[in-house]
């Protein structure tokens, strides 16, 4: 191996410095987080930008979502969500791709690429189509104002500041580590930035839903329902003024009520296809809520749905299931009462009849149980459990 000469060394050094600068140009091409223009319809980021990197990550998520086992394939449900988005967003409709996912959590989101997901737990909790429009309009506010990109850039800038300040302060006071203190302050700043985005998205959402013919007062009502359910579960909206990503539910309800007062009430009744469209998957949505294992929260949600008056028999049956599964003292009796009530109410599944039969059998009322087993088999000619029910009828 020959020793390296001075010229080669200098050339190599220059090359390293240039490639280092090129590296800086790529990885630190941030742009400002604070004066981003709106996303125009049909927008695609420059392939060399930091935004393109963000899109690449989201596209990977979308690829998984496309084939997800818990993706709801029901065409009517997907068409409804897409139609609501198109009514709200007009020229952006072709850019937005909604996926309805089976999950009992209350959530929906719209990403910078147009990927949008809506959980069934959110569709179940919504009282009407206007409430779905309120949340999707809010999510579109994040999309149009490019909040994800702004937050990513803001976080990166503040991380740089944190690193520089941490080093600088440590040099001034030898041996001291200020990095945690600096990080705490800058994290609070990042989260305040996030809360401002939520407020901006709320304002955009209510404006869009109002223009699309939905009832703007339902935007605040979304949060009233969330507050009521949280309160019932004994977990009120604990809010840290420095470390929360969102404003309080109460603040959002109040602000949205005020904003609604500035909007026109729709001249004609707003579209409300929600319950008719989700009816075929509603039973699985209710069952999934029970599987979450949150008793008080689920009970409150079910009570709200019963009060809404849409297929109360179906919700009463699942409320009975909620009590049966908990199995505390007296829950069997409460469950039996709910199954009875469900069995005679509109929209009850035939399983309510079977559950009355099983509960009566357990309590020793075999004749009463057989009556309900016969009604169950009569209502369900292709019952998957026919053989075992017939065993009960024979007196096993």
């Amino acid at each position, binding site marked *: 191996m020959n020793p390296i000469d001075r010229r080669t060394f200098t050339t190599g050094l220059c090359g390293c410095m240039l490639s280092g600068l090129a590296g800086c140009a790529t990885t630190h091409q941030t742009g400002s987080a604070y004066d981003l223009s709106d996303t125009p319809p049909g927008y695609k980021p420059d392939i060399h930008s930091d935004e393109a990197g963000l899109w690449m990550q989201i596209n990977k998520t979308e690829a998984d979502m496309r084939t997800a086992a818990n993706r709801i394939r029901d065409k009517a449900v997907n068409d409804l969500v897409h139609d609501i988005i198109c009514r709200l967003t007009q020229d952006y409709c072709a850019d937005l791709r909604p996926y309805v996912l*089976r999950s009992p959590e209350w959530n929906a989101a719209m990403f910078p690429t147009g990927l949008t997901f809506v959980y069934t737990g959110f569709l179940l909790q919504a009282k009407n189509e206007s409430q779905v429009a309120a949340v999707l309009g809010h999510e579109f506010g994040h999309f149009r104002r490019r909040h994800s990109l702004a937050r990513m850039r803001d976080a990166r800038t503040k991380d740089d500041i944190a690193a520089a300040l941490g080093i600088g302060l440590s040099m001034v006071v030898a041996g001291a580590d200020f990095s945690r203190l600096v990080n705490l302050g800058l994290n609070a700043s990042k989260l305040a930035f996030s809360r401002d985005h939520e407020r901006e998205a709320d304002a955009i959402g209510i404006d869009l839903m109002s223009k699309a013919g939905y009832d703007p007062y339902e935007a605040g009502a979304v949060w009233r329902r969330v507050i009521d359910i949280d309160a019932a579960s004994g977990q009120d909206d604990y809010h840290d003024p420095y470390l929360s990503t969102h404003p309080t539910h109460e603040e959002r309800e109040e602000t949205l009520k005020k904003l609604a007062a500035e909007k026109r009430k729709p001249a004609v009744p707003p579209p409300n296809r929600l319950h008719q469209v989700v009816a075929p998957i509603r039973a699985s949505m209710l069952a999934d809520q029970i*599987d979450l*294992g949150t*008793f008080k929260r689920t009970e409150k949600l079910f009570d709200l749905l019963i009060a809404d008056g849409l297929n109360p028999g179906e919700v009463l049956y699942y409320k009975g299931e909620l009590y*049966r*599964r*908990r199995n505390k003292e007296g829950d069997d009796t409460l469950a039996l009462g709910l199954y009875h009530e469900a069995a005679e109410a509109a929209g009850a599944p035939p399983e309510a009849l079977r559950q009355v039969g099983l509960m009566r059998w357990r309590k020793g009322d075999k004749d009463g149980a057989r009556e309900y087993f016969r009604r169950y088999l009569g209502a369900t000619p292709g019952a*998957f459990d026919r*053989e*075992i029910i017939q065993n009960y009828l024979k007196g096993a």
Partner: protein
Amino acid sequence: MSRIIVLLALLGLASCTPFRLVPPGPLTVEHTFVVDVPHAWNAVSGDRAVLMTMDGPTLDAVVFHPGIEDGKTLFYKVDLEAQQNPLLVWAGIEKDLVSYRFRKDMSEHELMDLYIASATKMGDHKISFAAANLAPFTLGGKPGFRFDYTVTAPDGVHRRGMVVGAVVDEKLSMIDYRGTSLYHFEKHKPAVDAMIASLRFVKD
């Protein structure tokens, strides 16, 4: 990878536990019942369950749930109350969580529901079950139940399964067998059926 983790969690399989080879012959499962294993099988102990597989747990799996006691969950991981911070519980700050537990007087429908709800929870709600053919069944000479199911997990592979079980001495014992619909379920089903037919409870 996360899909595989969800799938293995669904099977009640502890991720770090090594497999062992079970030789042909009688196998006593947790002092509760004995089955005759027709040929060498791979086995691993999991969360309140013992899993055996021939071609790998994502392709085929027999899961024994031996002697679940009254008031217990099917898997420890779905016992939400047990995982609460005892200090917070003592201070009256309990989370709003209730677990679905076995009770000794459960009907066959409830036992099937317990299995599906527990497995769904183990799979982080990312799996979808459809049950069929719930029917009476005699397990180890005791009156019990059986049902079939299909399941779609996050890996998108369609699987078929069947569960047989019985409540003996107030304890629930179940055998869950599943495999890919395309091939593995049918491949190992005769051997699993033979194992189930050979089952006898230890106190007999």
